[in-house]
């Protein structure tokens, strides 16, 4: 469920070609709102969620349920509308029902009324998406939510991976969801000064990680859910995995709320590699966190150089946020899925619109369009959050 559409292979194709889903979105409050470059999802829950259910679900929960449906079905685990009963649900979500919070405040402050929609609380809560996945597909393992800003869903996937590897679970539905492109939330992001301004060549090229002309990130929305299954169970039922998760590392900067620190990122990547037991020299591709802010991107490049040493010069590093924007709590899940598809297809997606590389971002950042990389065997996906929480996943070709 991404700004590029719903079908994973389709989305990957479009990303491979360097197509941007960023567009100018008109503010819903013309009196004082501003039009902004955003990456919205063209979302219609269709028949997947009955009309009456939608009354009690915020957009983030709806997108998560539809994404989960696609994941369970394509894994061959959907039986009469039910998923695997013993599965765990691990969902990353930074904010929850953002538009419901806004509507509630409108009622209170604008209409001077205490008549909130009665279901406001269960719609706002960040764990609503995980609960709805569990209820909709009758999945009865733990349903956990990780709210760690931009690292939320990388952590969710990493923790699900650990639960399976450590024998607590056989299968998990893991990923993330985020929908906060409502005016009230977007205005708060604008004020933080981290959003990209419209590029003179067009709004679609406004997200420019690693480029000298980058001005910030483009806020996006979406949801991605992955089915993660133990090797034993997957092979016993003859499943064909897209890729294998082999390592997970997480760390905290203990430094600053919004300013990243290479030391913390280095620890997350190193821990992920150590966890995987794979030699850093085998990593061929990194899907970077790189959001396109002037300060953030060079810090990650520096951290990659410190982790990989001379091998950093041989690595391909790209930021697909150049095309789908920054999905915050869903970012890690979407990017982990893209990384898994890159391994499966032996092709890596580019950093689009990278025309004037920043000298401080002097690695191979795959500018413009994707690249065939048939020998790709190991890849990494990074997420580094506000609050200084870092997470890295290591994936291997299945």
């Amino acid at each position, binding site marked *: 469920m991404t700004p590029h559409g719903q079908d994973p292979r389709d989305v990957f194709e479009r990303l491979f070609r360097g197509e941007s889903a960023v567009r100018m979105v008109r503010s819903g409050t013309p009196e004082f709102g501003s039009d902004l470059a955003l990456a919205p999802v063209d979302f219609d829950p269709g028949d997947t969620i*009955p*009309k*009456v259910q939608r*009354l*009690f679900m915020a957009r983030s929960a709806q997108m998560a349920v539809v994404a989960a449906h696609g994941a369970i079905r394509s894994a061959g685990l959907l039986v009469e509308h039910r998923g695997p009963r013993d599965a765990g649900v691990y969902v990353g979500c930074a904010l929850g029902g953002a538009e419901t919070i806004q509507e509630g405040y409108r009622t209170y402050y604008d209409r001077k009324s205490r*008549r909130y*929609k*009665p*279901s406001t609380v*269960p719609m706002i809560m960040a764990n609503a998406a995980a609960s709805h996945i569990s209820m909709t597909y009758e999945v009865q393992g733990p349903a956990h939510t990780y709210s760690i800003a931009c690292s939320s869903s990388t952590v969710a996937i990493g923790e699900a991976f650990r639960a399976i590897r450590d024998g607590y679970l056989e299968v998990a539905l893991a990923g993330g969801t985020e929908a906060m492109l409502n005016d009230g939330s977007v205005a708060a992001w604008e004020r933080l000064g981290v959003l990209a301004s419209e590029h003179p060549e067009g709004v679609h090229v406004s997200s420019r990680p690693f480029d000298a002309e980058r001005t910030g990130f483009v806020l996006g929305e979406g949801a991605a859910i992955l089915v993660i299954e133990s090797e034993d169970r997957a092979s016993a039922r003859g499943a064909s995995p897209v890729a294998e998760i082999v390592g997970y590392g997480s760390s905290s900067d203990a430094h600053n709320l919004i300013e990243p620190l290479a030391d913390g990122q280095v620890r997350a990547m190193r821990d992920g590699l150590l966890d995987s037991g794979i030699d850093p020299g085998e990593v061929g591709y990194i899907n970077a966190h790189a959001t396109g802010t002037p300060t953030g991107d060079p810090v990650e490049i520096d951290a990659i150089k410190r982790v990989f040493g001379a091998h950093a010069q041989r690595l391909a590093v790209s930021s697909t946020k150049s095309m789908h924007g920054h999905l915050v709590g869903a970012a890690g899940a979407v990017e982990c899925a893209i990384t898994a598809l890159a391994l499966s297809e032996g092709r890596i997606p580019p950093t689009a619109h990278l025309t004037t590389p920043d000298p401080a971002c002097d690695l191979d950042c795959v500018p413009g369009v994707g690249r065939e990389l048939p020998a790709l065997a190991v890849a990494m996906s990074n997420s580094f959050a506000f609050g200084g929480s870092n997470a890295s996943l290591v994936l291997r070709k299945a």
Partner: protein
Amino acid sequence: MSSYPFLAEVLAEKYDVEAQAISPDATMAELGLDSLTLIELLFDLEDEFGIEFPEERATFSTLGEAAAVIDDLVRAKEPTG
């Protein structure tokens, strides 16, 4: 029961209750309404009829009873001259 037609309509349109299940004798449980849905429904009815359900009158077993309570509350707020 002047409020009944609206009640029947909102159940069918907004809450996706099957038309043949809706009758004055139908209980809330038969209609498949859980507690959260019921609270939302009461909220809609209060908005529509400009009434407020006192706590002791916000429970009823059948649709017919619900309509009677609404009609009562509507009558009570009309000016008695």
